[in-house]
């Protein structure tokens, strides 16, 4: 293999990386207000953490009592969009999340098991 061939291969590799970069570009937003915080990410193609591909909606919002903390995380089916919201302890709080069909929604904090909704 001569030097010219190696340079050419590196050039193709560079071109492949440049072509893939727009698809891999990731954008995010973080919001904080008082004792709650939220984030949203889009563009990353990380696979979902769980194989649960059912559409998730929720949560019940009738239970807003004080608890250690409360949060929700939503991840789209293909992993390219996610959003989360969480509330610190103190007072009453409510969180909700949803996504496009196939998204997975998971709740954290007190009564997380009861409030986990996936259908």
């Amino acid at each position, binding site marked *: 293999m001569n030097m010219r061939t190696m340079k050419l291969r590196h050039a193709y590799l560079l071109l492949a990386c440049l072509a893939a970069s727009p*698809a891999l*570009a*990731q*954008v*995010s*937003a*973080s*919001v*904080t*207000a*008082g*004792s*709650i*915080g*939220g*984030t*949203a*990410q*889009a*563009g990353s*193609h990380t696979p979902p953490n769980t194989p649960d591909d059912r*559409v998730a*909606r*929720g*949560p019940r*919002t009738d239970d*807003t009592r004080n608890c250690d903390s409360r949060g*929700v*995380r*939503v*991840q*789209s*089916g*293909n*992993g*390219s*969009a*996610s*959003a*989360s*919201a*969480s*509330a*610190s302890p*103190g*007072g*009453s*709080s*409510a*969180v*909700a*999340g*949803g*996504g*496009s*069909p*196939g*998204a997975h929604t998971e709740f954290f904090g007190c009564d997380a098991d009861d409030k986990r909704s996936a259908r």
Partner: protein
Amino acid sequence: MKIILPLAFALILSGPALAQQTSPQGSVTAGSGGTAAVGGNSASTLGAGAVSNSPNGDASALGMGASAAGDNTKTRAGVHGNNNLNGNAMAMAHDGGDMAKSHTVCHDRSDSVDCRTKTMAHEPGGPPVKSTSQGEAAIPQQ
């Protein structure tokens, strides 16, 4: 000929309807939040949304949160919809006189995210203090 001409005209008219609509490719996120506080009452709400359109498929996610502290509190949050998501979060705290309130509304559409938060704090005898914050982002059309 009498049949062909109207048929051709109808096909031309139906062309745009038959054309496949595709969302612009790209990713955007946006969010907004706010807090109102007066006396010993505070109310906070926020929302954060993401939309991603790629050859692998279109996806969206929306998270909403509400929190309130004080003598009497009320919080509520919800997300509805499928491909177009609508989110609401509301928090209120009052003690019979002072009142703090915050409300956030978010919309995840096929190519954009829009969140808006309004807050209000009120003391008896004084005017309400209001504020609005907004975060929006759209995938540029190619």
